[in-house]
């Protein structure tokens, strides 16, 4: 019997030891005090940027309701909160290209804002394709669009004239021919994140041809583009951008280096449209639609809309609705931030670049992407040379079929 006693004593020692550690851990946890009038917004870092970045200006100036950013780590926790019907958060900020947005609409995990008059008033101000995206089939207003994002080709007019580059209404083949014809290391920087273009090409193919019934001819076209992109798709830090002049793109764009950028495929997020995109300040830049796939096939540029969706089970519902109506009022009269790009009948004659972007957005259409596992992962595998093109295509078609019919 003695021997058993020794082992038990040993385990008792560890247990006491770790309990002491646990007490230390337990009490170290901070106790959040629950103020009455703060609204809680879960911010999922995977879904892109945060509510606070977009909406702190509004927060300070107008609405008297305080908003606090709550931190669930990843989308699995967000999905659990949605499914479990948690009431400890009040609304969520998502973007239309994430699969979670489509699921929320389909399952009805939103609080319909029909009875908030300002919401309807705000939606009338938007372009009609954004208005449609914000109303569900049964006519409920399920979200409040509050940010927009579009990809475009950004080029300096004078430099491109010098090299005879013409970016209006071009197709990918023309774009690539022009890029190849440029001098290898002239003193201008032609910066093109090809990785972004590969993703754009595949989503355009999906928009125009759809992955299921791609004919042999289209697959050949897609293969040629992807092959080219892979050849140029050199990661940033390796500095082997034969297109670039000797110095790499510096970490932060100081004014000096901005002047000699010839063209850049820029994916502008909502923030940059209104505040920090340096290109506006320097001037001399123009924006145009991303190249089309083929001669006759013109497809509008994809626009990603960021929106707020109210948690139907939130315990501070009236406060949230009051905040949302104040917010809609504010947005309706807003003339400073990105809302102007989403509203009809705005004029940007003072700045040519803003006017181009406004035209792109007004003729755009809301696009949504498949989850990363479905298309993105296969695309990445192909770009890193780990998978053949045909294998990647089959895999993508199989994943899409499985995703839809599961």
């Amino acid at each position: 019997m003695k021997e058993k006693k020794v082992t038990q004593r040993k385990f008792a020692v560890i247990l006491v030891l770790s309990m002491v550690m646990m007490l230390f851990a337990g009490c170290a946890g901070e106790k959040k005090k629950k103020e009455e009038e703060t609204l809680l917004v879960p911010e999922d870092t995977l879904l892109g940027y945060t509510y606070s970045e977009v909406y702190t200006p509004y927060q300070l100036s107008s609405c008297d309701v305080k908003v606090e950013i709550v931190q669930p780590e990843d989308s699995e926790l967000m999905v659990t909160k949605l499914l479990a019907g948690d009431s400890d958060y009040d609304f969520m900020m998502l973007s239309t290209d994430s699969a979670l947005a489509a699921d929320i609409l389909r399952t009805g995990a939103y609080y319909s804002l029909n009875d908030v008059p300002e919401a309807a008033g705000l939606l009338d101000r938007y372009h009609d394709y954004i208005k449609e995206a914000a109303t569900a089939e049964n006519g409920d207003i399920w979200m409040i669009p509050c940010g927009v994002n579009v990809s475009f080709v950004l080029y300096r007019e004078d430099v491109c004239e010098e090299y005879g580059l013409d970016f209006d209404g071009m197709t990918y083949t023309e774009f690539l021919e022009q890029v190849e014809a440029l001098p290898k290391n002239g003193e201008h920087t032609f910066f093109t994140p090809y990785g972004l273009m590969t993703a754009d090409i595949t989503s355009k193919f999906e928009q125009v041809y759809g992955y299921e019934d791609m004919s042999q001819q289209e697959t050949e076209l897609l293969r040629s583009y992807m092959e080219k992109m892979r050849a140029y798709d050199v990661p940033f830090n390796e500095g082997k951008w034969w297109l670039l002049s000797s110095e790499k793109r510096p970490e932060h764009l100081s004014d000096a280096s901005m002047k000699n950028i010839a063209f850049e495929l820029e994916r502008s997020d909502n923030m940059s449209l209104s505040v920090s995109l340096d290109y506006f300040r320097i001037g001399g830049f123009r924006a145009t639609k991303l190249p089309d796939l083929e001669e006759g096939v013109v497809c509008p540029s994809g626009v990603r809309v960021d929106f707020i969706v109210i948690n139907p089970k939130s315990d501070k519902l009236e406060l949230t609705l009051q905040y949302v109506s104040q917010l809609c009022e504010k947005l309706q009269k807003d003339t400073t931030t990105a809302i102007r790009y989403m509203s009809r009948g705005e004029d940007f004659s003072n700045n040519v670049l803003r006017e181009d972007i406004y035209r792109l957005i007004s003729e755009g259409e809301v696009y949504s992407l498949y989850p990363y596992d479905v298309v993105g992962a296969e695309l990445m595998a192909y770009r890193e040379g780990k998978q053949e093109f045909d294998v990647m295509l089959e895999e993508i078609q199989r994943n899409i079929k499985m995703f839809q019919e599961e």
Partner: protein
Amino acid sequence: MKKVVVKMMLSLCALLFLLPIMLTVVHSFGVQSVDEGNFRLTSLVPSGFSLVGYYDLLIEHFYVLRNFWNSVFYAGSITCLNIAVSVPAAYAFSQARFKGKELLFFFYIMLMMMPLQVTLLPNYIGLRDMKLLDTPLAIVLPSVFAPFSVFLLTQYMKGLEQSYVEAALLETKSVFRIMLQMIVPQLRTCILAVFVFVFAEYWNMVEQADIYLRRETLKPLSGLLAIGEGLTTSEVLAGSVIFMIPIVILYLYFHDSLEVGLESMKL
């Protein structure tokens, strides 16, 4: 002659089973031996020797050590409480006679079969309503009442004859004394086996830690060692090696009492 062949075959099998563990231990000391991109070892033979994995894990991310102690506490307390709850229940199942016993036992097996993933969300809702979320209890309570060890211990207790119980009934009336004095020493090896098994299961738990806990200081180390938690794969290898040692110690204790138990076999 047959004995030698058996020994050879067994040691070959043992080597095969030990190969992955050897690879893990050896590569946790290797230099750039892990191809981060597609989560694979670059080559079977490690190149060079460096403690960079351990240095990163233990010194660079020193907060991981708190999670180690959390793991020790969770696995330790869950196992002890689980055994404390399951032994009486198994004893009752094997000894007591009441109408619905078979049905109840079948129900235990059914609940045991339910994969964890299914009951994650309802448990999340239950814990949220009990205000237990994001506290150590969220992990400990549901696991303490796992029907699995009750099922195992009942199967072991089925082999006991009734004669022991009648003999014990002459002296004492209290059920607990009978159980503790007579039955438990008999099944010492089996209870230790279940102890090792339950400890190993809750030592490597990942799903519960992800969903029920949000504060980093409360998460067990097994939660961090899963992929996608911010640790590089070489750190995960080093962490796995450190994470294996406590259970190996536990198993060594069990191995001893198992040998004692098997002595009586004298096959």
